[in-house]
């Protein structure tokens, strides 16, 4: 909606804001460093709202928790919008100055009354109303979200509905106000910035825009294909149709991280040729024809990473990779040479300078500047530019600098898999503090907090199923069945179950999850599938 993908605020701003909506995010456990900044904000008096089906450890820090049903985020956000408009709390000046499509948007949310929202999402109307008023009347307000918003079949709509709230209240483009997706790794942002997206060249320059492509063609003395590629979901689809025969995986473990593991496995096995480049021999690597051992990014590699606040920071090689492993760029350069293109000796600074010459937002970020400060935030247009603390300040410039931003009405679309008498429980998946994703980087270390995989249920459900804490049960979805021990927790309510996907070697959670993906972003609906639970031997 704004053109570039990135959090609009800096970490420091969340410490100085007045209202924080933490939507679909258990940042306390999954983004613990960012959560420190949230806590500073909280200690400085900010009101924290947590919108999450579970009362997570993050939600326990919140002044208010809204325990909505899985997949009803748009119901709540549209109801917030309607309430703000109905109470006359929207920022009329900002809307007139910097946006288009308000009237259509207002009409689209008209039916999302508080009563309807309560019925559909389960959250008491009063709680939604309070959040709407707090957000709209705050001097500064920030919305943060994570996978609770994006791991749905309608991920983009979910994000759009939150952006609508910011446009409605003018909480964007200002210090302490904005929209911030929290990134799952130190360099997810950097990966996208560098063009590891199916439709973008480095610096978010669209591959289907001729002028952008021309620039790269000239610099690289090669021809960039003029059409977008596949996203991950698209690739698996292409494997299914036989269009995709060869796959080169760098630093991913799709066998364990993708929804519907049985399907993933058969597709990966059907490939003609699979190359995996990783720091460990992952289960995906075990399926590969060729495995390229890589150095660890944080200590055996030279280059930069970019965090969620768009801050580019230097990474320096502290040690050589173990024998047989190489830094990722060395592998790529070597591969290029074997394919007949000698790029010379790999040098991270040269690569960075090439990026600067091609990506305007990175132009001003030199290695020399990175060496002397605490990193720089893009956009940084030239070497005198200090970098932008927050994005989209142009929306407040008078007259408006650039095109207005449009509201985008979105409709509620419940999870693909409904609950039925046969599969009566809603399973949602997520992560815990002491483990990371499929465990490639964390399972090698012990943790006093780690308790292994469990099927988390509320005490009431555990009781009605007649299962004890720790008892191993069979968990069944339409796609498969696994066994896991039960853990009763009061952070859940009847009908809602929770699992992680940290321990796939032992408990293959993604055998259960559904591979229904968002048509625009390709993310799968990890957050909502339907299951039933059976006692063993029954």
């Amino acid at each position, binding site marked *: 909606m704004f053109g570039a993908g990135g959090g609009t605020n800096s970490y420091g701003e969340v410490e100085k804001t007045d209202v924080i909506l933490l939507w679909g995010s258990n940042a*306390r456990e999954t983004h613990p460093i960012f959560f420190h900044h949230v806590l500073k904000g*909280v200690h400085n*008096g900010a*009101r*924290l709202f947590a919108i999450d089906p579970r*009362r997570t*450890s*993050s*939600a*326990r*820090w*919140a*002044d*208010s*928790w*809204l*325990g*909505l049903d899985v997949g009803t985020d748009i119901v709540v956000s549209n109801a917030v919008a309607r309430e703000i408009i109905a109470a006359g709390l929207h920022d009329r000046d900002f809307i007139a100055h910097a946006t288009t499509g308000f009237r259509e948007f207002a009409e689209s949310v008209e039916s999302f009354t508080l009563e309807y929202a309560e019925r559909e999402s*389960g*959250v*008491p109307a009063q*709680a939604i109303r309070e959040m709407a008023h707090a957000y709209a009347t705050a001097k500064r307000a920030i919305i943060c979200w994570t996978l609770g918003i994006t791991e749905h079949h309608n991920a983009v709509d979910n994000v759009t509905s939150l952006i609508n709230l910011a446009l409605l209240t003018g909480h964007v483009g200002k210090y302490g106000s904005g929209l911030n997706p929290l990134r799952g790794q130190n360099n997810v942002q950097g990966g996208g910035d560098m063009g590891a997206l199916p439709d973008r060249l480095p610096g978010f320059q669209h591959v289907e825009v001729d002028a952008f492509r021309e620039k790269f063609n000239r610099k690289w003395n090669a021809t960039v294909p003029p059409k977008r590629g596949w996203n991950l979901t698209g690739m698996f689809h292409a494997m299914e149709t036989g269009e995709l025969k060869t796959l080169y995986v760098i630093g991913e473990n799709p066998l364990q991280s993708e929804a519907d593991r049985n399907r993933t496995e058969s597709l990966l096995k059907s490939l003609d040729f699979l190359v995996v480049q990783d720091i460990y021999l992952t289960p995906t690597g075990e399926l590969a024809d060729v495995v390229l051992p890589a150095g660890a990014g944080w200590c055996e590699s030279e280059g930069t990473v970019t965090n969620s606040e768009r801050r580019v920071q230097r990474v320096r090689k502290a040690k050589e990779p173990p024998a047989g492993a190489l830094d990722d760029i060395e592998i790529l350069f070597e591969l290029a040479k074997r394919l007949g293109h000698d790029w010379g000796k790999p040098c991270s600074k040269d690569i960075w300078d090439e990026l600067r010459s091609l990506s305007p937002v990175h132009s001003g970020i030199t290695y020399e500047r990175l060496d002397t400060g605490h990193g720089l935030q893009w956009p940084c247009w030239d070497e005198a530019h200090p970098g932008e603390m927050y994005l989209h300040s142009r929306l407040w410039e008078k007259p408006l600098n650039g095109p207005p931003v449009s509201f985008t009405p979105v409709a509620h679309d419940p999870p693909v898999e409904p609950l039925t008498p046969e599969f009566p429980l809603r399973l949602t998946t997520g992560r815990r503090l002491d483990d990371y994703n499929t465990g490639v980087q964390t399972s090698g270390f012990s943790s006093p907090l780690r308790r292994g995989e469990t099927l988390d249920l509320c*005490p*009431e459900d555990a009781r009605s199923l007649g299962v004890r804490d720790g008892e191993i049960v069979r968990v069944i979805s339409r796609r498969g069945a696994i066994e896991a021990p039960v853990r009763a927790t*009061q952070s859940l*309510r*009847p009908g809602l179950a929770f699992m992680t996907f940290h321990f796939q070697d032992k408990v293959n959670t993604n055998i259960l999850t559904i591979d229904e993906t968002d048509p625009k972003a390709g993310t799968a609906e990890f957050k909502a599938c339907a299951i039933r639970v059976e006692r063993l031997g029954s």
Partner: protein
Amino acid sequence: MDIKVTGPEPTEAEKKAVDAVLGSAESAWAGGKRDLEREGRISLLGGNRARSMRDQLLPAFHAVQERFGWIPPGAFNYICKRLTVPPAEAYGVATFFHLFSMEHRPPTEVHVCEDIACRIKGSGALCENLEKKYEGSQSVGVRKSPCLGLCESAPAALILRSGESDPSGNGFGGGAIGEATPEKIQASLDSGKYSDQNWEWLTHAVPQMGESQLRLLSRIGSVDPASVEDYHIQGGFEGLAKAFAIGPAATIAEVIASGLMGRGGAAFPTGKKWEAVAQAKGDTKYVVCNADESEPGTFKDRVIMEGDPLSLIEGILIAALATGAKKGFIYIRGEYPLAIARVRSAIDAVRAAGIIGENIQGTGLSFDIEIRKGAGAYICGEETALFNSIEGKRGEPRNKPPFPVHVGLFNKPTVINNVETLANIPWILRMGGAAYSAIGTGNSKGQKLFCVSGHVKKPGVYETPFGITLRELITLAGGTSGSAPIKAVLLGGAAGAFVGPEHLDVPLTFEGTRAIGATLGSGVVMVFDQTTDLGDILVRIAAFFRDESCGQCVPCRVGAIRQEELIARLRRGEPNGSAADEVALLGEIAQVMRDASICGLGHTASGAIQSALRLFGNDVVVGARS
């Protein structure tokens, strides 16, 4: 907050004891019943509101301690859940205070004072005797205690009883025993009656009772401490009425004009403090009364609170009116059950009379007072440690600046004054600042309370205008109790200094004592005759500071231990190297503690010992045993 509590669940009795202070739990997350209808989709208690209850931590611990005699783990866990305090932090707080026990203790405990005034009156033998007598008893425990503030009745003991209700029916769990003997203590244990409930109790504490020149002590013995009417008849609330009439600015002007200096020991001009708070930004301000009277040898504040608590409350009300505070706290040490009960009754009485509360007498002003009970920590007499204690934290002093007038209790501008200081305020308003400042000498204005104890005939609290000499004061107290001449006088308590008989003519003023390298401190005048083993006193003073150092600053935490060890080695006659080397080392430790500790405890922990060494030479430590 996402706190993690493991271990035992509370029993019904434990819950009941905690709920009696905190009310019943509203949320399953705070130890209440899970009700999905109410709490399945929202948080009933969360965020800033959940975290804002931490100041109830000490009251909750007190409730459990008073019910069970210790803090059982189930009750502890329940308190953590109720108040959203992480167990590790709560444990740090509970173990900071002497009067809380995390281990099982007998339901009744006899605390025997082992501090200086009681020590020279045989408390050591008394304690040994009691320990033998109650050895192995499941119902009665014996503990040595730092100064109980009962020095006029040495040797003293304090009985604290736990249980469902106080067997004496007095509404407070125990009482003080003056001039204690094993027989008296047993009698109290049997009857539930204590010395401090006798009508002579205050007569004994105030030998000048009824004399016409008294101001601060004038009503003690003649006023009903819980009667607003009685207090009124005896001139009470005249000061408050004056303050109402002239307004905040003029009230502060009167206090500045009076020249009143704080009576807690630091002697800061009270009016200046008020003025700073009145000028500080913000709507929320507090008045805090420091009634954590723990300096060994000090008991004047106790006497005011037991005998004329309404004068203290009037002082607080005037301070609140002058500075715009809407809430007051009186932080009373936990070893003063009678004072706590009397002040509580007095607060209830003024509330019932509409003198405090919402919209006081139609003025549109609101003010209320709350008592907070200390739990046995000398350091909490330090003003910022006291704030932390009220806030439910370990009683560790804060760095200054910022000063309390800007960043005080709950980080708000705060007036904090000692009991005696506040009791002076109604007089200043009644007389006018100028008239008040005509009393006294140089920088020492008004009348002063002295806590006279030790080898004198009539120990007690004495009130005189500033200017009286040490000799005159001792004479007022009946002179020495025995035939032996005076060996030394301890001025200012354990944090003060010894002076020799050559200084008996020093005027007891701020400037007079400073001129001879001593301090007036909290008004302690403890007299020792030639029969006293001063070395034993020094051993005790060293042990006292080792016990009471909060441990925050390394020089004080380590220095207090090293000081005690050095004194012990000298006392045993086993110095490392020569005695002179050891004394030099003591001097160095004293210097480091003074230079590098953040609060007065570290600054003064070596003062009395150093003064004794200066006065009497190294042999003083070996004392009578040589």
